[in-house]
Each structure stands twice: as C-alpha cells, then as structure tokens.
C-alpha cells in the first residue's frame, strides 16, 4: 500500500526539484515557453510488472492550454469480426491495418475541441479520431463504411485494453505555470520506443512543443525467457521438455510413496 504513495511522493519531489531548478535559472526558462519532463524515461517490464504510472510535469510561460500525447511505436493490427451462424458466434471477416500506434494516450487540461480546431488536431494527430492508420490492402474492394467500422472497432478494443486513452482534464495546473499529468501503462504494454509530445496551445494555435523519448523494454528473467523462446525456438522447446521431465521427476521424489 505504501509503495505507490512513496512512489508518488518521489515523483512530486522530482517535479518540485525540477521546477525549482527552472525558477533558479529564470532567464533561460523565460526564453522557453514550455518545459516538461517525465519522471521515468525507461519502463522495465520485469517479472513483477503489473502496469505503472509515469508522471509528466512541466511549466509554461504565460497562459495557455497544455496537451500531452504519449505514443508507442507503430505496428500492424488484425481486426476480426464475429457473425452469428446457427446461433454460434464465429469470426468471419478480418481486416489488417498498418501504421497503427501500439499505444496512444492523449490528455489535456480542457476538452480537446475547446483547445484546438479539428483541422489543427488532424495535422499533429492529436486525439483518437485523428489517428492516420489505414487498411493494409486499400484496394480491397471494401467500402468506406466497412473500413470505418473496423477502424472504430480497433480503437474501441485498444481503449478497452487501456492502450488507447483520451482523457481531457487529466492535465492539472498547480497555479498558473506548473502542470502535471499521470499516464497509466497497463501490464499488456507493448515494448519499443515511445515519445511524449507536449503542446502548448494559445488561442487555437500550437505555440510551443516539446518531445521527450520513453523506452519500454522487457528486462530480467521474463525478458530472457521471451527472447530465448523467439530467438532459439528449437533450444527453448527442448528445454521446456527437459524442464517438465525434471520437474515431474523432482515432484515424484518429494512425495515418494512407501
């Protein structure tokens, strides 16, 4: 119970320290309209990983709204649709998409549409409705409405898995200048290079932006098992068999019948 609290406290302290440092160097901070950073630049998926929160904090110069976009590497996703045949639900149509962000989270201090026009959001891909991924085979003969329903379903499924998040109001201002937001990463988090983009918006236009990298990687025992299974499948298979034989034999020894 205390672990998340001390963690939150640590994040706060880092944030405060960073902001104090900014305040101390008043002149360079004034030159920059937006400064932001993450509490962690590396998320380690270890054997004990159950998901994590990363704190993003920063300061702005003058007034304005803040939008934070956390985006994972692009990948391929296959969407399947079930239909009912003789009462049984089974997959009967599928559509692969490419260029799909594996993770996408957008948070802001006010609803996105109040901050930026749809056109401006579209340009920067800010908001779930602006993501630009498309079907792998565009000339599929599939009509636009069908593609759109699969697209929407992809976003909906990702949202259900906490991999796509749109959260207006998640960016909180502390006073006029300091802001912070907390981004939640579930245990099913895909690995790779993420970017945290922070936008400062003033009267419907992005006046400043900052990009910070974030690496998500499997580490430790779990990572080694995973890499081993995919890089050396033959050896992994043989090891799985030997391990099962040894474990079964050891179990038989422990509970030996008289």
């Amino acid at each position, binding site marked *: 119970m205390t672990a998340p609290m001390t963690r939150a406290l640590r994040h706060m302290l880092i944030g405060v320290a960073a902001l104090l440092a900014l305040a101390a160097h008043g002149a360079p901070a004034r030159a920059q309209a937006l400064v932001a950073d993450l509490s962690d630049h590396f998320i380690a998926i270890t*054997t004990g990983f159950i998901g994590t929160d990363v704190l993003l904090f920063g300061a702005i110069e003058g007034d304005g709204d803040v939008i934070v976009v956390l985006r994972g590497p692009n990948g391929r996703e*296959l*969407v*399947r649709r*079930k239909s009912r045949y003789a009462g049984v*639900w089974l997959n009967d149509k599928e559509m692969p998409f490419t260029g799909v962000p594996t993770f996408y989270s957008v948070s802001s201090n006010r609803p996105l549409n109040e901050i930026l026009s749809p056109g401006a959001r579209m340009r920067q891909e800010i908001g779930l409705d602006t993501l630009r991924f498309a079907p792998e085979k565009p000339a599929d003969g599939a009509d636009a409405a069908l593609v759109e329903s699969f697209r929407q379903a992809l976003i909906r499924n990702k949202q259900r898995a906490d991999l796509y998040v749109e959260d207006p109001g998640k960016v909180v201002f502390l006073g006029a200048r300091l802001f912070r937001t907390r981004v939640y990463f579930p245990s099913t988090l895909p690995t790779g290079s993420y970017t945290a983009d922070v936008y400062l918006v003033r009267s419907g236009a992005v006046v400043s932006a900052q990009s910070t990298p974030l690496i998500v990687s499997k580490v430790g025992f779990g990572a080694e098992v995973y890499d081993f299974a995919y890089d050396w499948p033959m050896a992994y*298979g043989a090891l*799985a*068999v030997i391990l099962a034989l040894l474990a079964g034999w050891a179990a038989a020894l422990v509970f030996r019948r008289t």
Partner: protein
Amino acid sequence: MDIYLPIAEISENVFVLLLLGGGVGFLSGLFGVGGGFLTTPLLIFIGIPPAVAVATGANQTLAASVSGTIAHWRRGNVDFKMGGILVAGGLVGSVFGVWLFALLRKLGQLELAISVTYVLLLGSLGPLMIVESWRAWRRQGRAGLGLRKLHQHNWLHGLPLKMRFPKSRLYVSALLPFGLGCVVGILSAIMGVGGGFIMVPAMIYLIGMPTLVVIGTSLFQIIFVTANVTFLQATQNQTVDVLLALILLAGAVIGAEFGTRFSSRLRGEQLRALLGAIILAVGVKILVDLFLPPLDVYSLAFAP
C-alpha cells in the same frame, strides 16, 4: 502477488495460478486422471490467450505424467510394444495437430476449434461417466454378473497387419493402436491434453487390453506425445510459457497429494459420478459461451 508471464504477456496472480493447478491436481489425485482437459479451459477462463493455454497445458501434462509413468514402469505395467506403436501414431498425429493448430490460428478459427472439440468431448464423456457410475451403483448388492468374455470381437479386429502383443495377451492389427495414437496426438495438439481420458476407455473397449497395463501404457504414450507437442508448439507457434507451466505444476503436485489421500474416503462410483458432473459442467460452460453474444463482435487478433 502478481507475476508477469513472459510468453502469455500478461500479469496473473500467482495464488490464483497455484490454486488452479492445485485444484486440478487435487482432482487428478482423487480420480487418477491427468487433468489436462480441465487445466486448459480454466486457463482460458482466467484470461490466458487460448493458444498459450493449449500449448502450456501440454507442457504441464508432460510434467504431471512423469511420476505416474515411473511408478507403472517399475511395476512392469507398461506394454512397450503396444506403447511403441501408440507413440508412433501419436507422433504422426501431433505433427499434423500442431500444423492444423497454426493453420486455424491464421484463419482466426482456433478459439472456435478449441471450444467445439472441448464441448464434444466433455459433453459426451461427462454424461457417460455419470450414467456408468449410476448403473454400477444400482448393480451393487446383486449377485455375480456371470462370466464376461475377455474382450468383444468386432470389425476392428479384422483389420490387416496383425501383430502379437504378448504383454497384453492380444493378437490385433497394428493399425488399431496406431490410429488411436494418431487421434490422441491431434487432440493433444489442439486441446493441450494428454488424452488419457479417451485413450484409456479406447484401449479397454476397442483394443481389448487388460486393465492392468492400460494406465501405464497410456501414460507411456502421453509422455512422448506431450513432449512432442511441447517441442513443436515452441518451435512453430512460440506459445509455450515455461513459467506458467512450472507454477501450475507446483500447485498440481501439492493438490494431487491431498487428492490421493482424500480418495480413500470416497467410493469408486461416487468418485466417477462426481468427476462426470465436473466434466459436464465445464463442457456446458464452454457451450454456453459459444452462443452468448460477445462483448464486442470485433476483436484484435494476434498479428505476427
């Protein structure tokens, strides 16, 4: 305490996994069955991806079958000649089964295939066991049943390639155990089971083997077939989660110990009726899930 399973790529509570392994282990100790046919569906119920549940189920069944095989081997209850032919069939069947598994997965019909095979097998096995134990219970108290033939002869015994099996005191076609091994191999690959619950009755009623060597010989075959399935699933589909298998085994070993002790307190027919009811319940649950409208008709598939 949650643990991140490296191949399943999700976190699960260790105690839930231990309890699941322990519960199935308890039942396998109680009834003397492998329990793979309960492990796989239960893993799917708690959210393990079906492909991983099946492959890991086979790996866990391998581990769980070792001790039984050693015990029967020592007592000389294994017909190695019959077992060898069953293994040969099992290897052919499991190679085909893993190939079919990969194909179904690509087509998006793997979950359906797993569900349907489970519904068919559990749905027929459960009622059979209940009826059989009820009959046995009714027979009790009545006098001797009279002489029973060693085994029934039917068209299966007219098949070519006849061989002598001295240990089982049989002269039957080699195609019979080969075919049986083949079927069990396919089921092992698709369902993640050892297949003892099909093989044992088939060996007794179809082949006509003496009951004494049936368990040992089927376990002997299960070791080779589940080892082959584990290896093939690991190399072709990367779906074997060793960590998950070991946690399940740890629970199963302890559960089986309690199950064996508890089994002496229950009568054979009661045990079989109880197991039949459990099997039927799992089968009905999977059947109902096939007909229930899904949360979302769209889903994201595993896309390599």
